[in-house]
Each structure stands twice: as structure tokens, then as C-alpha cells.
């Protein structure tokens, strides 16, 4: 039904002519964007440019009024709900770190693992060696091994951001949407996060929204600047940051 016969595009994530308005406010305006498999893309733009709304559309939280949103060239995401889209392999980290505060760090990761998510499966879940090894590995990657038994709510802001990235890793999606991963982080943490994302990018497609230009520069990937719900400029960080319009609306002179 929502799977087309042939691939419409080679892109992993493909948005074309997408419109969304809330009560007459055009949050997304004729937005077109394509993410190739294995690509990491940085999205920048002023507040209200539609960055988060775009992620809402991709993950099924918001339905677009018009336009095409394709995953893996074949799946029409506009017809699916959040759960289905997550199952397909699109993971998301929120702008405000959203972890399960009253549960331990390792339980947060356990919940994120892409295993049987049915009521029955979780009721009779017994755990396995493979699962705990994966959790151990993620804990190591996000440097939270020592904090594994702490409640997620007691972590520092930066640690929560990392835990959420860790949850994405446990989920092991094909595409990761990462919204402001370094907000509120120290310089060292920011640097480590850039390293972490580059590492993850080796076998995942990533879209990362960020305001921190030093961080974006460090990622060294193609940059898209959004403004008023549409693409203002696209290219390397140097090309985009020297673009007249980008300087005017976003970077400032």
C-alpha cells in the first residue's frame, strides 16, 4: 500500500515540496531535501526556521499538508505513525534531552534496544547475553559504564544528552535524527560528541540540527541552512557561511 513498486529515488530520506501550516502560519514552505545513504548532514538556521518541525514530519509526529516524504526511496512516511516509523529504522534524539528519568541508565538502553516491542514479548522477556553485551558496548561508547545503575534523572545535562545518543545507538536505526546534541555542553564534551557522531556515521545515515557553528565545522559535512521553512543554502560549511543571505538572516555580520 505504502510501498511503491520501484525506488523513486536513491536517497535514504527524500523530502519534496513539503508544506505544513499551523493556524495559517507556514512552518514549512515548499521544503525539498535529500539525504544519501551513509551521509551525515548538518542543518542550521535561525529559530523558527522549521528544523524541529521537519523532524516531526519525518518521524510521523506532524502530518504535512502537501508534499512527498520518502524513506529508503520506497516508503511513504506521511501515511505512517510514530511507532511504525521507529520500527522501520528512523531514530530521533530530541532537542531537550528526553530520557526516562525514574529508571536506571542501563534500563533506558534496554528499553531502546530494537528487539521485540510487543506486549507479550516484553512481559515474558528474559534477557540474553547478546543483549547485555550490546548494552555494555553502548555504555562504553557513551562513557556511562560507571553510571549504569544510576537513575537517569540524576545525570548531568551533558550525560543525559549522551544517554539519549546511546539510546539511539541501542535502537540501531538506519537514519538518526539528532536535534541539538551539544546544547548546554562544555567545549570538551562538544568535541567528544563530534567524534562520537563521526564514529556513528561510519554505518548510519545522520541528520543533525545544531546552532553551534564550531561543532558543525568540526563535523566537516554538507550543511543545509533553513529559513522560514525552506532551504536557503546548501553546500560545504565555507560555502554556506559565506552566502550573503545566510549571513543576513542567521549568522549576522
Amino acid at each position, binding site marked *: 500500500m505504502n510501498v511503491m513498486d520501484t525506488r523513486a529515488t536513491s536517497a535514504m530520506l527524500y523530502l519534496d515540496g513539503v508544506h505544513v501550516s499551523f493556524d495559517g502560519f507556514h512552518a514549512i514552505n515548499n521544503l525539498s531535501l535529500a539525504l544519501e545513504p551513509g551521509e551525515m548532514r548538518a542543518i542550521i538556521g535561525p529559530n523558527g526556521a522549521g528544523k524541529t518541525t521537519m523532524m516531526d514530519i519525518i518521524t510521523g509526529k506532524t502530518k504535512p499538508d502537501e508534499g512527498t516524504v520518502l524513506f529508503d526511496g520506497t516508503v511513504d512516511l506521511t501515511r505512517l505513525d510514530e511507532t511504525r516509523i521507529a520500527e522501520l529504522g528512523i531514530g530521533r534524539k530530541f532537542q531537550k534531552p528526553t530520557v526516562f528519568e525514574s529508571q536506571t541508565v542501563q534500563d533506558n538502553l534496554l528499553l531502546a534496544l530494537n528487539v521485540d516491542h510487543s506486549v507479550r514479548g*516484553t512481559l515474558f522477556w528474559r534477557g540474553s547475553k547478546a543483549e547485555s553485551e550490546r548494552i555494555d558496548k553502548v555504555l562504553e561508547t557513551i562513557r556511562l559504564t560507571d553510571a549504569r545503575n544510576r537513575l537517569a534523572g540524576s545525570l548531568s545535562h551533558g550525560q543525559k544528552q549522551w544517554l539519549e545518543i546511546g539510546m539511539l545507538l541501542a535502537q540501531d536505526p538506519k537514519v538518526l535524527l539528532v536535534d541539538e546534541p551539544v546544547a548546554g555542553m562544555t567545549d570538551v564534551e562538544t568535541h567528544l560528541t563530534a567524534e562520537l557522531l563521526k564514529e556513528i556515521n561510519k554505518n548510519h545515515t545522520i541528520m543533525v540540527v545544531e546552532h553551534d557553528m564550531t561543532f558543525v565545522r568540526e563535523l566537516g559535512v554538507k550543511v543545509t541552512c533553513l529559513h522560514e521553512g525552506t532551504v536557503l543554502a546548501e553546500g560545504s560549511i565555507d560555502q554556506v557561511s559565506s552566502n550573503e543571505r545566510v549571513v543576513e538572516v542567521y549568522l549576522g555580520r
Partner: protein
Amino acid sequence: MTPHILTRSLDRAATAFILIVAAVGVLIPLSNLLLPQGSMFQVPTYLVALWGKYVCYAILALSIDLIWGYCGILSLGHGAFFALGGYAMGMYLMRQIGSRGVYGNPILPDFMVFLNWDKLPWYWYGFDKFAFAALMVLLVPGLLAFCFGWLAFRSRVTGVYLSIITQAMTYALLLAFFRNDFGFGGNNGLTDFKDILGFNVQAEGTRAALFLLSCLALIIGFLICRTIVTSKLGKVLIAVRDAESRTRFLGYRVESYKLFVFTLSACMAGVAGALYVPQVGIINPSEFAPANSIEAVIWVAVGGRGTLIGAALGAVVVNYAKTFFTSGPLAPYWLFMLGALFILVTLLLPKGIVGTFNSWWETSKATNGSPDADSAAREDGVGAPNPAE
């Protein structure tokens, strides 16, 4: 590496709770039946019935805690499922009266004869059989909860909106059951019961057995809830409670989880109602009153939301207080006291009795430098829910 789901559910507190309930369930009936009347340790029959009622309320509280404490579904209409279970049992008890009724009709209950009905309505068929009635005790509340939940959770009705429609549901049922032509005895409800499974409901032995059964049901209900909340399913429920949309983005079908616990909880409430009716001897539409459901939520809040043991304890403590105060000169002020109790608990003990005790216990263990304080916190698997929610 991970223990069986049943053994995992039994930590020290849970085992202690089960043993205490089992001891009460055996000792009270024994003392009532075996000790001579007037002896200091003999529990009078009226007290057996009264405590049996508390135990049924404890089961209802447990069912509310499962959905509210662990999944964040605040049902203010759970009394409806309790009452439906009660009516199913009441219908069986009515059919057992047979020709011993005032009008002596072997098939029709008295109120139907009084209304000049000439035959039994179809929905009364089968209730002369205990097995059928017992099935209905689970099925009727379960089915209603399933349909209600399917509509509400799929449309993502949450928070206060869900609470309000659960209130509307129980109120609608209250009005329906008040009507004589609805076929459930109208205002008077169902009463004047004689036998249950051939035993006189008034007899001391029957009362003792019902009390024991209620305690057994409480233990089984508690075990089911513990098994759920200590499984991975329990972690998902807490995730739904704390960050529903986040859980969805991880690929969990939140509405299925809610529907599962809501339906299960309604079945438990139905069993509580079914055990309650033969012990109090009557079921009438007032059991559907919205205030009853709200009161049940207060028991859970007083005892400690999200602790299970607290819910059961809260039900007993508040109802004991109710009995104590409403039988004395303070009777007219009971509702004020209940209101004050709720305000005081919210202000002073936002985690309830058991929740407050748990955090005190953990802090004192942590300050004593006990190395397993951390693992004890983990065993519970849950932090207390946010009381501000």
C-alpha cells in the same frame, strides 16, 4: 542469567506482604470459628465481614495502582468495573434464591415479579450457573474496559481528559442502573441473598470462607501486578508514564500497552466487586457513584502510588478510619476528614505512606554506607512517580 519472571517479582517486601495477608486470611477465620464466643481473641462475625470488605477494597486499590502508579492512567471510574463484577455475582445470588423469594416465583427475582414481567430477560440467562457468573465477573468489566480503552487510547486521550471521560462512564452507568426497566432491580439493586454454591451466605462458615478467598484473591492479584511491574513490560509502562511520546519514538505501540493493563486492571476490579457483594449482602447503583471511584484513588494516594503494597495498605487504613469515625460522634464530619486527609497527605507525604517509608529506608541505608544501597534501589526498578503529575 535472568531469573524466572515469577521469582524476579518476589523481593523481601513482596514476600512479607504475601505472608502477612495469608496469615490474616487464615487466622481471622480460625479465631472466629474455633474460639468460644466472648473470648478475648475471638473475632466476632461482623468484624470478619467488615475486614472482608476492606480486603476487597484493597484489591480494587491494587488494580488502580497498576494503571495509575505504573502507567499514568488516572481512572476516576474504576468503581464502575468493581460494581459490574458485583452485579454479575449479585445476579447469580439472585437466581439462587429461587422460590424462596417473597413472591415465590422459581425463576423470576422478586423485583421482576413486582414489575409484572412475565419472563426472564435474555441477559439474565445462564446466571443460575456459578461458572457462567464467574466468567462474566471477568468478562463484563474486561470487555467494557477493552472497548472504552480501545477508543480512548487509540485517539490518544490522556491526562485529565481521560479522567473526565472515565467519570462520565461510571456516571452514565449509575443512571442506567437506577432505571427499573434496565432489569437490574433499579434503585434497590440486588439483595436478600440466600445461598452461594449451596452454602448459606449469612452462615459463619461461609463468611469465613469468603474472607479467606478474598485474601487469596488479593495475593493472586498482587502477584500478577508484581510480575508485570518487575518484567520488561513494567519498565515500558513506567516509560509511558514518564515520557509517552518518547516511548512511541522508540517503536513501542503505546496504546497496546495501555489497553493491556487497563483491561487487566478492570478484570481485577471486577473480581474485587464479586467478592464484595456476598460479604456485604447487597449491590445497588450507588456503587457506580463517581465519588466512590475518587475515594478509591485517594486510598492509593494515601498508601503510596506506584508501590502496590501501599495501595492495599491505603485502602485498609482509610476504610478503617472511615468505619472508626463514622460510627462515633464525629460521623457528620467524615467527608471533611477525608478531604483533610487527602490534603495533608498531598502536602506532607506526597509519596504516600509506603513511598515515604521507602525513601526514608533508602536514605538511611545509604548514609550507613551499606554497599548494596545502590542495588536495592535498582531491585525496585522504579523511582516513585512524580507526585506533581
